[in-house]
């Protein structure tokens, strides 16, 4: 059984006040997410990620197509016992404290009253909310609300979680915590489906990704297939005299002087050993040698042609 599957899922929004006309935000999305996957749903802003996730949560209804979660139709009340959902930029009742909010949600999940307090305390620990859990949400920062959102999404020990932009609003520490949380969920056997426009996050977390642009699935697959193992080149940093560098200049694609003797060389994929040999013979000292591989970003740029608004996709 698949954790998540969609078939020909499409959604039109009505836009325009006087003469409403349909605007296709999601076009014929067909996805299959296996149980245990950490699935990155990637795309620039406005690509249709949130639309797809809302369709999966049945907060909106599809214009055509259908979606299933754990083999049951999206929106099924029973399946909701087994899933968690973090909305994009979540917002909750600001007159409640984090503890009260989660206790209420725990009751909606039918967690027995005797277990609620312990469960709520555990998930608040998991997302790193400290003493402020007894404070009303009104006084929370964006990052704290985001953590509450994550806590309420894992309250029921879900089998599948849907996180819409889980890293948004978080500082670098917060993002590290979220990465850690996603990995913990994965280790527990939970399927993680998350949307993001931040590729570096996806690259370190996912085993599968789908890239969506302008409402259409642009590409997808195993991350190892996409970023590949092929080495595209090498980045060599050495401390060497200008004479030593001159001997290998023709073999390098580019040479950059970093400062004084330190040089960075962009080498082709074939045998960097020869270059190293020449340089060390000339008395150079190797600082570092790193392979250059295709990144998710290259893949992304290749499939999302000019759709990403500059300055927002990072």
């Amino acid at each position, binding site marked *: 059984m698949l954790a998540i599957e969609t078939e020909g899922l499409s959604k039109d929004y009505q836009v325009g006040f006087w003469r409403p006309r349909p605007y296709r935000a999601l076009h014929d999305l067909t996805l299959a997410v296996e149980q245990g996957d950490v699935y990155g749903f990637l795309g620039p802003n406005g690509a249709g990620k949130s639309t797809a996730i809302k369709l999966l*949560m049945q*907060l909106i209804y599809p214009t055509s197509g259908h979606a299933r979660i754990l083999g049951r139709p999206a929106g099924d009340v*029973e399946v*909701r016992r087994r899933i968690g959902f973090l*909305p994009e930029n979540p*917002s909750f009742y600001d007159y409640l404290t984090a503890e009260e909010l989660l206790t209420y949600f725990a009751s*909606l999940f*039918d967690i027995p009253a005797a277990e609620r307090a312990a469960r709520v305390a555990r998930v608040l620990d998991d997302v790193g909310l400290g003493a402020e859990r007894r404070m009303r949400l009104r006084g929370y920062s964006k990052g704290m609300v985001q953590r509450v959102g994550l806590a309420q999404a894992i309250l029921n020990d879900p089998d599948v979680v849907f996180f819409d932009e889980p890293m948004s609003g978080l500082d670098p520490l917060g993002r590290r915590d979220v990465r850690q949380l996603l990995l913990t969920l994965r280790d527990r056997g939970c399927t993680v489906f998350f949307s993001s426009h931040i590729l570096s996050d996806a690259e370190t977390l996912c085993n599968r990704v789908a890239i969506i642009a302008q409402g259409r699935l642009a590409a997808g697959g195993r991350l190892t297939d996409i970023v590949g193992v092929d080495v595209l080149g090498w980045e060599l940093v050495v401390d060497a005299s200008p004479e030593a560098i001159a001997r290998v200049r023709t073999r390098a694609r580019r040479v950059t002087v970093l400062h004084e003797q330190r040089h960075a060389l962009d080498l082709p994929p074939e045998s960097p050993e020869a270059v190293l040999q020449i340089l060390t013979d000339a008395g150079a000292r190797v600082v570092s040698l790193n392979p250059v591989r295709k990144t998710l970003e290259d893949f992304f740029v290749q499939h999302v042609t000019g759709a990403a608004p500059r300055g927002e996709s990072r």
Partner: protein
Amino acid sequence: MSLAAIRKVAGAVFKESVRDRVPYSLVIFAVILMAASFLMSRLTAGQDLKVIKDLGLATMNAMGLLIAIFIGTGLVAKEVERRSIYAVLAKPVSRASFLVGKYAGLVLTLAVNLGLMTAAFYLMLQYLNWTTDDWIKQGWRAPSHDPRLLVAIALIGVQLMLTTAVALFFSTFSTSPMLSMLFTLAVWVAGHFSGDLRNIQTAIDSPAAAVLAQGLYYLLPNLDALDVKNEVVHGLPIAWNAVGLGVAATMAYIGVLIGSAVLVFNRRDFK
């Protein structure tokens, strides 16, 4: 729909009303109003029991109406506007349970409010009873703490249940809280005049207007049938049959409103 889920959502609404404090400040305000009317009547013509009862019931009605309209129209609309509805609707709670729970929670809030106001009202009437000379009491048409007052209050409660259902109904699809409030108030006002609508052809000489008025008469709730303040205050007999029929019709009306609200809400996109 699940009774357990309805109860939990209703509990949350009730808790919010306590946190919010607005409904309970209104209770205090109502008590102050009643006390003021009480003191006024003592200063002037002397122990006018009818005035005190009349003002007391009217105050309860008005406060209940404020709560029903202001909170009722915001029950769903506020959750949509603040987007807190996303997380809740992804929980194992059907949209129908959510909506009915919201309704039940506000009805519970109103019941507690009416209860508190009633208690304060009876304390005042009891005090009046103690401090009034017997010869004055002999002129009273009805006893000071007449149990029939409870009937009048209960019927105010039924009217408020209807008003809350109207507010909820509008707020499930209207995007403007202001409009929902106005419409709800309009239905409440029209509901009190719906009896006049039926007899309008005797007043206006236009068959078209008469047909329209007849149509509205059947469409609008008949809240007048639930208003026995006058009878209770003046010690007149209550037309129990009409009241019973009015309550039954109102309950059916509430059922239709909530049912339609659920139908609308079930199909709605939360974009």
